[in-house]
């Protein structure tokens, strides 16, 4: 039993390692942050060296939804539908303050943050954020993916754990349990 768990954990680690270094982004670009997104993707700040090069403009082919720029209330259903159309496992990054909290907008039409409609894994503040900040956010996301802490990953893990428990006839008591216990963000000095 211990050996099987060890193998499963190693397999999960390997899968998460592969996922974090091959993110297919769906850049949902609406506003000025798109300029910084373009410069991150350009050769100088090169997001390709982290594996997240190809923008896939279809949710069916993407696993990372990057919400770049202001989201209005009118766009809410569209963004929600795009998130639902993505295949699992999927992650969401809020790029810029408008996508994180609504930014400097507080009015009748701006949604106060994209996390009102989709669960966001990493928030990258900035108006717009510098490319180095974006890459830092991407590395943060990669660490979360490696630990299995993305919202969607946790949901999938919880559902499969519940299914397994039901098959064994046991009670499933944890609502959302990740494969590893959720830990704090490790500092740079303790990098894996």
């Amino acid at each position, binding site marked *: 039993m211990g050996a099987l768990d060890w193998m499963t954990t190693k397999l999960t680690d390997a899968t998460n390692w592969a996922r974090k270094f091959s993110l297919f982004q769906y850049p949902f670009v609406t506003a000025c942050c798109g300029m910084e997104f373009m410069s991150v993707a350009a050769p100088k700040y090169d997001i390709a060296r982290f594996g997240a090069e190809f923008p896939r403009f*279809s949710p069916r082919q993407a696993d990372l939804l990057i919400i770049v720029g202001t989201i209005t209330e009118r*766009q809410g259903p*569209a963004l*929600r539908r795009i998130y*639902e159309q993505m295949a699992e496992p999927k992650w969401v990054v809020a790029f810029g303050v408008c996508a994180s909290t609504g930014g400097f907008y507080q009015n009748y039409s701006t949604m106060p943050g994209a996390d009102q409609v989709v669960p966001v894994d990493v928030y990258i503040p900035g108006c717009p954020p510098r490319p180095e900040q974006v890459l830092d956010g991407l590395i943060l996301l990669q660490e979360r993916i490696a630990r299995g802490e993305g919202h969607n990953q946790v949901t*999938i893990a919880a559902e499969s754990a519940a299914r397994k428990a039901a098959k064994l006839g046991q009670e499933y008591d944890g609502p959302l349990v990740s494969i590893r216990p959720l830990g704090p963000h490790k500092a740079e000095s303790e990098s894996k």
Partner: protein
Amino acid sequence: MTSDYLSTALMILAGVGFALLLTAAARYLGPHRPNAAKDYPYECGSEVIGSPRARFEVKFYQVAIVFLVFDIETAFLYPWALKYRALSCAGAVSAAGACTGGVSFFGLGEILVFMGILIVGLAYVWRKRAVGWE
């Protein structure tokens, strides 16, 4: 001769097998959480406007057909070019590559006939303005 076909068969097997392996891996190892939105057509998140069954301009079809014919012709030129030395030799080609026997125009004539037929076709298509875009 068997080994030629064997390598081709192995390549086909590897290609098809790889595709099947990846599909199976995605099906059995990946998460399966269907929802209604995943079946809905993708139109950047909004409701679908209009039907995908719009009329297409025939110029796309024309370009494709003309391309296909002349591409096949080009493909036929390759084996002819490889065998040209043997075809233009009235005798046999020695091991060193020299021609024993006289010069024969069989290869050249053959390809000129082949291309001539196709050039007549090209001239017709050109006159009918099907090679351009408009």
